[in-house]
C-alpha cells in the first residue's frame, strides 16, 4: 500500500484549513461590521457549501474554475497551468467546502467578545484595526481555531468535491478517500481497508491533539 494518498490528503487538508482560516476569519470580521449592507445574505452564501451535496459543489467549482471559465483562463495566462485536476484545484475545492465551518465559528467567537472591551480599547486610543488585532481577534481566537479544526476534518474527509474538481490522477491528486474507493472497485480490499484505518487513526489523533492545544490555549488566554 502506498502512503502517498494519505500524505497528499494531509497536505491538502492542512493548506485548505489555512486558506479557509484566513478567508473565513476575514469574512466573519466583515460580517461583524454593522456598516456592511446585506450581511445576512453574504453569511447565507458563505454557508451554502454546508447544504449542497459535495458533487453539486464540485460541479459549480468545475464551471467557475474550469479551463474555459474566466478564472480558469486568467489563471492559465498567469501560471501556464490549469486549476482543475491539479493539486491547486484540490486545495481550492477543499477550502471552499470547509469555509462555512470557519465563518460560522469565527462569527460566533467575534460576537461573544464583550462590546465593552472593544469600547474600552477605543477610548484608550486604539484605532479600529488595533482593536481588531489586539482585543477582538485574540479573544475570539479559541472559537476561530475550533472552526479551523472542523475545516481540517471536513477537508480530510472530503470525497465528492475533490473527485469532481481534482479527479483521480494517481500520485497527483488521488487523495486517501479517492484511493480507498479506487482500491475497493479494483478488488484490492486489503489496501482499501488499510488506508481507511490509517486515515482514521491519523485524523482522530490530529484532531485530539489540536483539541487539547485549543483548550490549553483558551485556559491560559483568558
Amino acid at each position, binding site marked *: 500500500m502506498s502512503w502517498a494518498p494519505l500524505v497528499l490528503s494531509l497536505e491538502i487538508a492542512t493548506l485548505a484549513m489555512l486558506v479557509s482560516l484566513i478567508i473565513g476569519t476575514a469574512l466573519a470580521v466583515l460580517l461583524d461590521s454593522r456598516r456592511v449592507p446585506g450581511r445576512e445574505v453574504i453569511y447565507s452564501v458563505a454557508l451554502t457549501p454546508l447544504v449542497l451535496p459535495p458533487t453539486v459543489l464540485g460541479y459549480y467549482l468545475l464551471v467557475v474554475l474550469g479551463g474555459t471559465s474566466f478564472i480558469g483562463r486568467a489563471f492559465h495566462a498567469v501560471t501556464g497551468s490549469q486549476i482543475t485536476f491539479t493539486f491547486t484545484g484540490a486545495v481550492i475545492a477543499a477550502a471552499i467546502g470547509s469555509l462555512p465551518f470557519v465563518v460560522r465559528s469565527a462569527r460566533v467567537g467575534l460576537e461573544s467578545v464583550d462590546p465593552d472591551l472593544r469600547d474600552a480599547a477605543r*477610548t484608550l486610543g486604539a484605532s479600529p484595526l488595533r482593536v481588531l488585532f489586539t482585543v477582538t481577534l485574540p479573544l475570539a481566537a479559541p472559537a476561530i481555531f475550533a472552526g479551523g479544526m472542523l475545516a481540517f476534518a471536513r477537508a480530510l474527509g472530503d470525497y465528492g468535491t475533490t473527485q469532481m474538481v481534482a479527479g483521480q490522477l494517481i500520485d497527483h491528486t488521488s487523495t486517501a478517500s479517492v484511493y480507498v474507493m479506487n482500491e475497493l472497485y479494483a478488488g484490492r480490499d486489503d489496501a482499501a481497508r488499510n488506508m481507511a484505518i490509517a486515515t482514521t487513526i491519523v485524523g482522530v489523533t490530529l484532531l485530539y491533539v489540536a483539541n487539547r492545544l485549543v483548550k490549553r490555549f483558551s485556559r491560559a488566554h483568558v
Partner: protein
Amino acid sequence: MTLSRGELAIDVELVCPPGITCLMGPSGAGKSTILGVLAGLTLPTAGTVRVGDETWLDRANGVDVPVHERRLSYVFQGLALFPHMTAQKNVEYGMHDLPPAQRAEKALALLDRMGVKSLAQRRPRTLSGGERQRVALARALGRQPRLMLLDEPFSALDQALRDQLGALVKDLVAELKIPLLHVTHSLEEAKQLGERIVRIESGRVVTQGSGKSGP
C-alpha cells in the same frame, strides 16, 4: 446634546470645570448614555462636546472626532479590563505613543501609585474586585486624559473599599486638574466625592449644586 434612546429623549447641557462632577439619577435616566456621547461611543441627533479648546463633536457643523482620537479615559461599570493581558499590559495599552521601555516604566509607576505594583504580572481574573478597580484606574490615568469618565465603577464594592478608592480618585483629579464625570446611584458617594452634583431624571437635568449642599 439631544438624542432619543427608545422611549427616552435626552436633552441636557452640562458645563464641567476641572474637578469631580457627579451625575446622579435613577436607572434609565440617561446617565450612561451621556457618558457615551462624551466618549464618542454614542452619536446624538444634535449637540456639541467641547473639552478645553478642542471641539470633539459639533453635529451642526459635521464635526465628530473618532473615539480613539479623543483624549479621554473611561472606566466602565464592569471595568472592561482585557482578560488576555496582565495588569501591566492593561495599563500600558493606552500608552502606545510611548516607546516600550517608557511604557513599562510608567505603567509600573501608576500601579505602584494605586498600591498594586506587586500584581503587575497577574491577569484580571486572578485579582479581587478592589484590585481590579485599582488596575482600571491606573489604566485610565495612563492615557493622560483631558477628561475622565467613571460609570459606577465602585458599585460592586463594600463601603470601606469604596471610601478608600473615592479618596484616591479625589487626590488624582486634584493633581491632574481635569474634569471628571462620575456616575453614581449613591447620594452619599456623590456628596463625598463630588464638587458638583447634577441630578438627571428622564434625560433632563433637574437639579445641580455643590457637593456640600447637595443637588
